[in-house]
């Protein structure tokens, strides 16, 4: 069925923006072009900003995340579809079925650029289809197709089937696998071999009976630039620097695999479900080990860093397994987290999760959780469908992955997420669930990098390393100031600062792997030449947009019932000094309350973590202030 989109009624255009979004109502099989209001563009810039503005406005509190009332957003950034390298990532935003909070999950590839070049600043998916459906967007409009023949296929087969029908090179697809269909609460949305993985965005897509979205980019065009000459000059100069930059060269050669030995050396690499910081044989999953298996590389849209390393297992149990990646996080989750040092197993597990449509971080942490419960005698083989999951047993890992995706036996419990699984298992199991707000922790030990750890606790999406990456602690950045990663306090301002900067970057949407030599002023210069907006000219002014985004995301969560008690870490981080972690050995989170106070103070939130009326007013969110009043004690 071909449904031409309706025409816009408003025409207040601004360069680089499309000034409209695509609204999909799956329940009614309707697709409409909707105007993007100028004040939204003015106040929220793009990408993640448009996402939270839309969700706060259109998603009533207490909506069931897997019900038809939830909204699923696909958001390219301001510069998607342009030649700016590293700026064509895209975001999925929704209410998370894993955490009950706001979630945004970021992905690379070409889908975001295709959506922008197809004429939209973002896409909002409402409702629920009455049967499995996929969408096809082209210059002719939006078509809704029956997806019965795709339902049950993995993400590779799904994309192959759709590309076979529409063409291999110009069709860009985001889809779910069996895990999303079965509403696994950490199911991912997969595009090519890349994932918008976190927080169960794939389950939301599955709950809407939406198997895939395919975009034919052949009829699209890049967004119009305000000052093409300046924009191109900026990009050209930047690319010249990247050509010889050591960090860029390392990223191209190794991807993120070369993070592992440094984090291990510093005692930041979590081992055995965050019990330790040293993994004997870690060199077997280090960058040199993966280099031996490298068969190619991959670059996202317009990216000159091309950090996507393609690996193929040459021999052994997993011979023939091939994956783009694994990235550092997956090396952590299927390596250190479960004490596995078989690189082939990590590649094969990464590939399997991509095909099934699972978040590798959450899956690995769930597996480490099970291994620790087995070690501690909380779960026996009988409760584990006969499995005997001991540390390092990657064979069991594969069985757990399959069971989760199929929701079989113990997999059906783990499919609810590690936090909920801990509650369901009981007998103290919840203590071993390494999550923040229910989102499984990534591969940086909070006790060994405490601003980063505070970031997990106060993040509005839960335990994410990318919501406010503490570059000062992980990477030695000296701005806005030097930070001792092991110091117990003095971190709140750093965590807030990082969150704000990240939110600014995610209006772009800038990739963390491709941001070599990118300064905030460079971002401003690109934005000004692309949009013509003079209010974006100075780096110090643009922080307000990031602060507004983070603040409104927090207000979204407060409306859902989140408060100070939810801004926390697993009990282990407060009670157990970190073991066997080199320079980080013995570290523990000692001053959580004062860290929270520091952060709230810096952000202009009250003692319960609710943005003050004054702060909301300063950020132009006065209308939100009245919503917040009823939550103040």
């Amino acid at each position, binding site marked *: 069925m071909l449904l031409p989109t309706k025409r816009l009624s408003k025409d207040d255009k601004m360069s680089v923006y499309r000034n409209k979004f695509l609204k999909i109502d799956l329940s009614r099989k309707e697709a409409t072009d909707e105007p993007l209001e100028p004040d939204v563009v003015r106040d929220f810039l793009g990408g993640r900003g448009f996402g939270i503005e839309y969700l706060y406005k259109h998603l009533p509190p207490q909506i069931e995340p897997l019900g038809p009332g939830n909204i699923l957003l696909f958001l390219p950034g301001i510069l998607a579809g342009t030649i700016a390298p590293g700026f064509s990532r895209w975001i999925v935003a929704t209410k998370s079925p894993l955490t009950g909070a706001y979630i945004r999950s970021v992905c690379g590839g070409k889908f975001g650029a295709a959506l922008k070049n197809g004429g939209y600043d973002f896409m909002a998916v409402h409702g629920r289809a009455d049967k499995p459906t996929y969408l096809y967007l082209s210059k002719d409009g939006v078509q809704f197709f029956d997806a019965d023949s795709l339902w049950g296929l993995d993400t590779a087969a799904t994309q192959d089937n759709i590309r076979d029908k529409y063409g291999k090179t110009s069709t860009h697809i985001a889809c779910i696998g069996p895990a999303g269909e079965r509403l696994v609460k950490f199911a991912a949305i997969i595009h090519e071999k890349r994932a918008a993985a976190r927080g169960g965005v794939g389950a939301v897509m599955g709950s809407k009976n939406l198997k895939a979205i395919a975009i034919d980019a052949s009829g699209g065009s890049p967004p119009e630039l305000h000052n093409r000459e300046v924009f191109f000059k900026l990009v050209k100069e930047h690319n010249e620097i990247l050509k010889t930059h050591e*960090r860029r060269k390392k990223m191209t050669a190794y991807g993120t695999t070369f993070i592992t030995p440094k984090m291990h050396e510093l005692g930041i690499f979590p081992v055995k479900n965050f019990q330790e910081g040293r993994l004997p044989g870690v060199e077997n999953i280090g960058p040199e080990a993966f280099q031996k298996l490298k068969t190619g590389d991959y670059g996202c849209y317009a990216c000159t860093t091309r950090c996507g390393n393609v690996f193929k297992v040459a021999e052994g149990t997993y011979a023939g397994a091939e994956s783009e990646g694994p990235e550092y996080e997956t090396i952590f989750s299927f390596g250190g987290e479960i004490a596995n040092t078989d690189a082939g197993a990590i590649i094969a597990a990464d590939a399997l999760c991509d095909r099934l449509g699972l978040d590798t971080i959450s899956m690995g942490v769930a597996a480490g959780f099970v291994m620790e419960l087995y070690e501690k005698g909380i779960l026996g083989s009988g409760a584990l469908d006969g499995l005997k999951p001991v540390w390092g047993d990657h064979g069991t890992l594969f069985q757990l992955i399959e069971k989760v995706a199929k929701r079989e036996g113990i997999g059906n419990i783990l499919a609810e997420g590690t936090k909920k699984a801990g509650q369901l298992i009981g007998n103290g199991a919840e203590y071993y669930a390494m999550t923040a707000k229910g989102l499984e922790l990534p591969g940086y030990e909070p006790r060994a990098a405490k601003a980063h750890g505070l970031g997990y606790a106060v993040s509005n999406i839960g335990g994410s390393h990318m919501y406010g990456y503490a570059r000062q602690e992980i990477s030695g950045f000296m701005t806005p100031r030097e930070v001792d990663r092991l110091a117990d306090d003095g971190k709140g301002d750093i965590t807030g600062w990082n969150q704000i900067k990240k939110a600014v970057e995610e209006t772009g949407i800038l990739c963390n792997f491709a941001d070599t030599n990118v300064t905030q002023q460079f971002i401003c210069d690109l934005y000004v030449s692309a949009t013509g907006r003079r209010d974006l000219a100075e780096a110090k002014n643009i922080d307000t947009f990031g602060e507004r985004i983070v603040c409104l995301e927090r207000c979204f969560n407060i409306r859902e019932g989140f408060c100070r008690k939810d801004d926390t870490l697993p009990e282990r981080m407060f009670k157990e000094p970190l073991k066997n972690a080199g320079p980080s050995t013995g570290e523990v989170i000692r001053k959580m309350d004062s860290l929270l106070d520091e952060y709230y103070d810096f952000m202009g939130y009250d003692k319960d973590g609710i943005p003050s009326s004054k702060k909301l007013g300063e950020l132009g969110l006065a209308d939100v202030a009245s919503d917040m009043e009823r939550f103040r004690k």
Partner: protein
Amino acid sequence: MRINLKFIVVTGAQEAFGATEFSFELAGSNVGDLVREIMEKYGTPSKRVFLTKGHYEPSLQIILNGRKYVPPERMDEFPLQAGDTIIFAHLVEGG
């Protein structure tokens, strides 16, 4: 005094030093002395590790005892003690 050195995925280190982890007898007293003495002892191959266009490679980070990042432009300000460990590693982040 003996200083422990570790080069983590640093291009050319294995070739220049024959190993990526070794100890070094330092005559001087600070991180700047250390880098200069290493280049003096190991010659041109080691200069390729540390220098770009005659200046210290800015993305090659220096970490003292696994905790303190030493800004390259201030390496002379950081004194060393016998048994200290210096890690050289490139900027990495994300995941």
